[in-house]
């Protein structure tokens, strides 16, 4: 578990305009912990993950990853290199990108391609992403994220990684994510996925509270 990353969030506030969508959230996650974030739509789960990645501006509070509070553009780039990300919104992607081009952007493309084959999307390497089904796309993004973990990323942020999958696929992906020896923060509505995590945080109206798994 040498790569696993510590994550400390203190009094985080993120807003859309003047509306707080993450409201005074504090959270400490130890290296190697697997944490599920649950809650209804619009409760602030995705915004929390995006703030950790630097994709949503922080209004107040701070997020420290591996003892580093990112401030400069270089800090953020370094942080983004330490994080493997599975987005919920599967990329605006109307511009064509091939599956193998996306996998090549992983920190370890060889592992990403191997995992894509294990997840039964390896044969789609020459297809454009916009030609994939939602489930295939999620598996490709998972393979890319796991390739990044193999390349040194210590924190997996997964935003509804099983949302577009059938029941068999949901269980398989949940098992794969649970097997990762890194810190995992997963936003999910899927009980199977949440049951693989040691901690469950529930978000409502931008606030977070710990619940019993």
């Amino acid at each position, binding site marked *: 578990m040498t790569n696993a990353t510590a994550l400390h969030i203190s009094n985080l506030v993120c807003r859309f305009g003047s509306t707080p969508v993450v409201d005074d959230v504090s959270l400490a996650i130890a290296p190697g912990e697997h944490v599920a974030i649950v809650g209804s739509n619009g409760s602030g789960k995705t915004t929390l993950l995006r703030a950790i990645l630097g*994709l949503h501006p922080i209004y107040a509070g701070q997020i420290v990853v591996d003892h580093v509070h990112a401030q400069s553009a270089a800090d953020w780039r370094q942080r*983004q290199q330490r994080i493997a990300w599975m987005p919920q919104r599967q990329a*605006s992607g109307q*511009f*064509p*990108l091939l599956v193998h*081009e*996306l996998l090549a952007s992983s920190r370890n493309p060889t592992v990403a391609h191997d995992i894509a084959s294990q997840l039964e999307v390896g044969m789609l390497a020459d297809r*454009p*992403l916009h030609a994939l089904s939602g489930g295939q796309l999620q598996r490709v993004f998972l393979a890319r994220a796991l390739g990044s973990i193999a390349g040194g990323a210590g924190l997996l942020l997964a935003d509804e990684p099983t949302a577009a999958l059938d029941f068999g696929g949901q269980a398989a992906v949940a098992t794969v994510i649970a097997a990762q020896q890194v810190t995992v923060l997963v936003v999910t509505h899927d009980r199977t996925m949440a049951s693989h995590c040691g901690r469950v945080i529930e978000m409502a109206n931008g606030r977070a509270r710990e619940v019993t798994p």
Partner: protein
Amino acid sequence: MNLDTLVGLLQLIPVQRAIIALAIAGGAFPIVGVWIIGLNIVPVRFAMMHVALLGIALGMLIQLEPTLVGLLLCGVTGVLLAPLAKRPAGLSGPMGLVMTMAIAAALLVLSLSGVNANGAFELLWGSILATRTIDVVILGIVATIIIVVYVVKKRDLALLLYDREVALCSGIAVEQLTMLLMFVIAVAIGAAVHLTGALLVDSVTILPAIAARNLGRSLQHMVWWAVGIGIVGNLLGFGLTLVLNQPPGPLLVITVGLITLATFLRKRA
């Protein structure tokens, strides 16, 4: 027109220079068109035409080479616009603002400098048959920059044009790359307007890229299609210009436009 007349026309130096200029522009500028489509900033060409006019007016006012001031101002404007690309609304709104402000400022500067506006417009609206050797050299330099940026940054560009956030989270310096692209796009359009004429900007940039968008399965495929259509379409259009003895601008745009239309029909089929 008989063959002897056509051969005679092809031996004229302005015609030869025009063919070389079109081959260079058609071979590189469609790559800029692909970036413009990918960044969803099609209005950029109108904005930069007006910024180039403002630069020419400023050059006349301060008595510096108007073309160079125009290109410089295009490049600076492109760089200044780049940070706005991260806004969810994108760059279309700011482009409209730049276009309107630039033409207003250009007319004001022309009035202040006492220069007839037609003089500035003549400098701006070039013609492919009036291309000078120095224009071909400038086109070659801009084309080389475009190709080098594409070849060196191909992988990063593919991710950025697909999705800005995916690119960011892959460790790509997205803001710097966007700034570089905006600079090259702005300078390329400024150069193309002056050197080939306003009407031809679309036939060497946007139209081949739109056609390539219908045919390409990846950035690389799109670039190959765009460059192929850019070269073939523009040279074919210029050939028709000579054969039919008509002005080059409209025939070039119509030729490349028809090729683009055919790609839409093929896509539907």
